[in-house]
């Protein structure tokens, strides 16, 4: 009962907190709201016309939505990998990053779910997937595994920070015995969501481009590069605009993670390229399409080569301590890496899986404006959710939001 009272008070205070802020903050939120509304308007067009409003076809039947979904699962997974050192290894440096990381995970998960729903032909019939009421094809369908792990992960990542925030809000110290098991669980779970998402594609014998044992590990490596890279950028912004203290040491520690993950990712990329191009088989055609184009169809070429150059430049530069220690350069490198992996793990992975089709037909995919607008809307939604969570979290951490005993 008391917890409930504290919670409702926290919600009220948080609402006041997020509705007040500087001019920049208000402009930021207004812009996000506008993009979200624009995305919703476009989604209504898609609902009306069906998925024919998108660029997807019978040939390339998954596009921008599933690409972004795949990438964001990685971001969500990586964000929580910062939790382990902070809570368990008592590594103080990470503490400030953790709350941000968990907020990022929650926002990324909401975006994932939104992208999946946007991709559905019959979103109104999604209740068919709810166990007991509907039919849940578990354990056969990897998609049901994904539904389970994503929702479970969302639950863990909402409850742990909520517990900690509620304790701090009341001026108490959170009990490690309560949250440490959850932290451990969430770390294993983070690996799980990414592996399961990789298995979603990896398990399809029909698509040789995906049916590849390296896909899961590569997902992890790229996620642990892109996720923390995003966290570094976010921390830099938060440092600039709030009084939240994030020491340089923290950012530099995280940049270590980014660097190692990016290096491993690059090694795996080389291994993949070697396999596809040293002795090309029938199954290498998708890779040929992706990197060199087929029959004059070259839509992905500028994207993938942008991605690879950004990836290589950023990884090599990050490898040098001197370069990495310069925070200004680090931010740029993190941005480059993030974009590179968004392309590579997004439509650089999903679209070539469908090209060529089962009977060798090469039909390219170009997202429609409706699709792009809905995608932007969902990204804006993610940024909106994250801003709300981060602002509340930071206020509690800084002691600006405190539970007033008198209310009882």
């Amino acid at each position: 009962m008391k917890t409930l009272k504290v919670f409702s008070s926290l919600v009220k205070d948080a609402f006041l907190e997020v509705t007040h802020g500087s001019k920049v903050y208000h402009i930021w939120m207004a812009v996000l709201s506008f993009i979200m509304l624009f995305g919703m308007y476009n989604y209504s067009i898609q609902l009306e016309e069906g998925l024919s409003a998108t660029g997807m076809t019978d040939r390339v039947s998954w596009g921008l939505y599933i690409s972004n979904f795949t990438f964001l699962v990685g971001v969500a997974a990586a964000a929580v990998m910062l939790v382990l050192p902070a809570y368990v290894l008592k590594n103080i440096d990470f503490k400030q990053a953790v709350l941000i990381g968990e907020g990022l995970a929650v926002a990324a998960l909401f975006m994932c779910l939104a992208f999946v729903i946007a991709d559905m032909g019959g979103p109104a019939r999604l209740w068919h997937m709810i166990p007991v009421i509907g039919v849940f094809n578990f354990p056969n369908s990897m998609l049901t595994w994904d539904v389970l792990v994503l929702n479970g992960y969302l639950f863990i990542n909402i409850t742990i920070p909520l517990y900690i925030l509620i304790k701090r809000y009341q001026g108490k110290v959170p009990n490690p015995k309560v949250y440490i098991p959850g932290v451990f669980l969430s770390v294993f779970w983070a690996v799980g969501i990414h592996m399961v998402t990789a298995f979603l594609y990896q398990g399809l014998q029909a698509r040789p481009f995906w049916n590849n044992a390296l896909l899961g590990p590569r997902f992890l490596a790229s996620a642990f590069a892109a996720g923390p890279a995003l966290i570094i950028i976010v921390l830099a912004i938060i440092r600039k605009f709030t009084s939240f203290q994030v020491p340089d040491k923290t950012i530099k520690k995280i940049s270590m993670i980014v660097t190692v993950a990016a290096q491993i990712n690059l090694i795996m990329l080389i291994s993949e390229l070697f396999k596809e191009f040293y002795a090309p088989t029938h199954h290498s055609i998708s890779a040929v399409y992706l990197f060199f184009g087929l029959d004059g169809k070259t839509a992905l070429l500028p994207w993938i080569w942008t991605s690879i150059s950004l990836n290589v430049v950023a990884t090599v530069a990050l490898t040098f301590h001197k370069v990495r220690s310069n925070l200004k350069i680090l931010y740029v490198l993190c941005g480059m890496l993030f974009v590179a992996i968004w392309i590579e793990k997004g439509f650089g992975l999903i679209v070539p899986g469908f090209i060529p089709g089962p009977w060798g037909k090469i039909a390219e995919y170009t997202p429609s404006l409706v699709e792009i607008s809905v995608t932007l809307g969902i990204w804006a939604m993610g940024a909106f959710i994250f801003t709300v969570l981060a602002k509340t979290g930071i206020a509690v951490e800084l002691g600006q939001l405190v539970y007033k005993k008198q209310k009882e």
Partner: protein
Amino acid sequence: MSEDNKKWYSLNLGRSKKTESCGCGKTSESCESEKPKDGYDQIMDVPMSRRSAFKKITAGLAIGAGAVSTACSVVSGDESKEKSAIEWEEYFKGNYKLMTNEEKDKTVDRLTRSYELRTGKNLNMSSKDAEEDVLFGYAFNISKCQGYMDCVNACVEENNQDRSSEMQYIRIHEMEDGKGFNFEESDDNYYHEVPAEGHFYMGTQCFHCDNPPCVEVCPVEATWMEKDGIVVIDYDWCVGCRYCMAACPYDGRRFNWKTPEVPEEEVNKNQHYLGNRLRKKGVMEKCTFCVQRTREGKNPACVEACPTGSRTFGNLLDPDSNIRWILDNKKVFRLKEDLGTEPKFWYYMD
């Protein structure tokens, strides 16, 4: 094959008029005489001939199939109330696979009644189960196929596929002699006279695999293999995630990217719940070996339409069936056998 410059796969009904044959491969006269036999009695009362219907291709678009939104209209009265009641119950009904026979009958009644309310016409919808000791299989004679595509037309008309997006289940691949089965270089989009010199033809469609990857991946079990080996979809249970489409190595599945349109006059009213009943937007569909025909002991429309006899369909468990004779006496093979999907669709040559 087509004098006017149309793509082969367009449902060119004008062509049917010119050549005096409809997609089922017969002359239109025999087609008309056959139709009332399969259909519901009421169809006979409808003053409609197939050929006159062809002329009004676009007339019926507005009352296109699966236009669920009709019920939201402002028309008040008992009928609209009944419509919304039907829609309510249809929305909350369960997966067909798990329905009792009584529930199956009820949903079939609702669907036929809903069609009657919408168009004033009656349907004959079956929910007949698989028969005992039946396992369907299919064989395709590569030596015989000449690429006429009568099978494609017959399939579209039989199975009420979307006319506006020209959806087809069957693809005929034109291959060059001397190159073997080279699908990459084959052409499944030809529009010239067939058989073309120096080419041979090969048809693909859903192979109704015995180990179907599409069924495994469906998150809601909206698709499954029936006891007689037909891989079917419950169109009302499908959520439209298209995972099955990604999982199919044979391009056997199609998605309704928009609301499918079949002019009312062209709707095949002899339907099966798992077969050719009208679909809605955002759901998968596929070849069902014409379940509405084959469970009544008939051949699929493509087999019946084929003028060359390349297509053989039958019960694999019946030792006297033609399909068994082919499997026992011909050098048969299947496509992409290395994937372990065990298609029930064999190719052979004379």
